[in-house]
């Protein structure tokens, strides 16, 4: 049976009555869920809760029917977690650190050695495995973080902005890696980079001010934005006038003119032509809608929560 993650009306309140997360609910089986939202939306708080590092103020979370809060050790056995921000022991090598974390995750002997070699290969660190970590670049440390999360072949993989600090090639490699890992796993990752979602996520959850404001597939979000993206090439002065009234997703200078992509519910300029939005533009459009509605009613949502 496929393990199921159920998050039931979970809230988290920090000091001074500040709510980081409000009544978040989600049910998920195997697949890759991308969590997207502005800074302070509650993504890291949610992922820390799933990693058993934070207790919710209210609500319940279960994994395979078992309460995560009562039995955190049960989920830790099947968990792989990459925090948003983490450090290393500079004095030791990547291999030693992975052996250490592998042993803590319950791996032993030949199985441990095999897994360490496998994850080093997956993240392209085999050649640097015996170098001291103080010589590693930020991107290499990040890849090491991903490697350690994969050591125990986790059923639940929680990644908090895993691609931050990776160069474009490393990011593409990660995008290739994630789908190959997903299989029967539940993968939840947060990101600000919509391209990562586009390339890897089967599901998408948008968070805003601690609340789940939308969930569905990337295709559904794109469909919502299908008639709200316009492209036009106009002189600079006209572009400035349009920009004052509409949200611009991109503006590329073309000689004395500007080729712009505009988010708007109706035609923003006589020369504007409908265009196919990217997922990033669909997300911006959704955020725009949220801003206008001031959190009262989400912008077109096929599956409101």
């Amino acid at each position, binding site marked *: 049976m496929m393990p199921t993650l159920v998050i039931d009306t979970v809230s988290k309140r920090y000091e001074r009555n500040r709510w980081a997360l409000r009544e978040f609910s989600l049910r998920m089986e195997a697949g890759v869920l991308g969590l997207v939202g502005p800074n302070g939306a509650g993504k890291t708080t949610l992922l820390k809760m799933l990693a058993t*590092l934070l*207790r919710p103020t209210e609500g319940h979370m279960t994994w395979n029917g078992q309460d995560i809060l009562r039995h955190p*050790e049960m989920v830790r056995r099947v968990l792989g*977690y990459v925090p948003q921000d*983490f450090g290393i022991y500079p004095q030791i090598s990547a291999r030693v650190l992975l052996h250490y974390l592998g042993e803590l995750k319950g791996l032993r002997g030949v199985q441990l050695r095999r897994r360490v070699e496998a994850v080093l290969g997956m993240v392209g660190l085999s050649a640097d495995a015996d170098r001291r970590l103080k010589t590693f670049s930020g991107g290499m440390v990040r890849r090491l973080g991903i490697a350690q999360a994969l050591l125990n072949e986790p059923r639940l993989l929680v990644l908090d902005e895993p691609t931050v600090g990776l160069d474009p090639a490393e990011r593409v490699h990660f995008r290739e890696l994630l789908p190959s890992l997903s299989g029967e796993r539940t993968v939840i990752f947060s990101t600000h980079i919509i391209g990562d979602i586009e390339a890897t996520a089967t599901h998408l959850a948008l968070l805003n001010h601690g609340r789940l404001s939308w969930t569905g597939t990337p295709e559904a979000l794109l469909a919502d934005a299908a008639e709200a993206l316009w492209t036009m090439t106009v002189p600079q002065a006209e572009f400035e006038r349009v920009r004052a009234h509409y949200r611009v997703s991109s503006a590329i200078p073309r000689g004395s003119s500007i080729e712009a992509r505009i988010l708007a519910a109706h035609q923003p300029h006589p020369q504007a032509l409908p265009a196919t939005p990217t997922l990033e533009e669909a997300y911006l459009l959704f955020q725009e809608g949220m801003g206008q509605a001031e959190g009262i009613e989400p912008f077109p949502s096929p599956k409101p929560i």
Partner: protein
Amino acid sequence: MYTFWVVMKLEFRLIWRNWVTWLMVVVMLFIGALCASSNRNEPWSSWAHLGTTSFFISLILTFCTGNQINRDHARRLDGIVLSTPVATKSYVCGKYLAGLVSLLLLAGAGLLSALIVDRFPPGSHGFLLFAPPFYPSLGALSYLISWTWLTLPAIIFGATFMLASLTLTRGQRAIAYLVSLLIWVLPLFLTQSIPQLLDITAAVFFPQFSLAPASHVSGIDPFMQFVNQHPSWNMDAPPPANLVQPIMHLSLASTPPSPIPSLFLWNRLFFLGLSLLLLVLTISGTHTLRRRA
């Protein structure tokens, strides 16, 4: 149990890959050698030298430890480590014992250098801060006794106190250092005001190495009687051959001073018990912090 060894092994490796640890080895070797050379120069003050050496060794080593768990937090590694299935007590005890064993090895380096210098042949020439060894070897037993009674409990307490302080205060070093300084130094000056049970240095039991005024020491000890009987003897010069044996006899008889008060044993047990309590507190605190990493 296995993860306890895993945590301890890595922590031990991290400690000994730090240059400060090796600097401490040099410091301990120096302090140990200094103690032995002082004993060889003034054997009648051996217990004072051993007490002072124990004081410095335990205080210095206390200042060098305790950051094992807080370091994981400061380096933001706790999220990764504490989301593994490792039990909190295995994690804390592994970190603690790696620190404690390292301190004992460092203190052992001081003991080793003292034992080596103690074996040097007598002579009349000093070297830098080392006094000339006028008198023969004191023997290993005196060093082992003082290490066991004075250094060992103080180091165990220091290691536990600093681990608890730095873990539970999330690395407030200034507070931990100040409190430990007060715990170690005050009894040296306030032998009469500090309850005997609370003196980690044990100076209160052996005023010979206390820094407090010695007016409360009543009576004249056998060594002072000996000095009074030999007014021509110059304590700063090589001793006449006929006085070496009686001086060594008197010195060894007072190392350790006898009788050892029974409250001294309770004092040592008190600090060991307190250490156990602090360790339990650290485990409990880490368990709570684990849900707020």
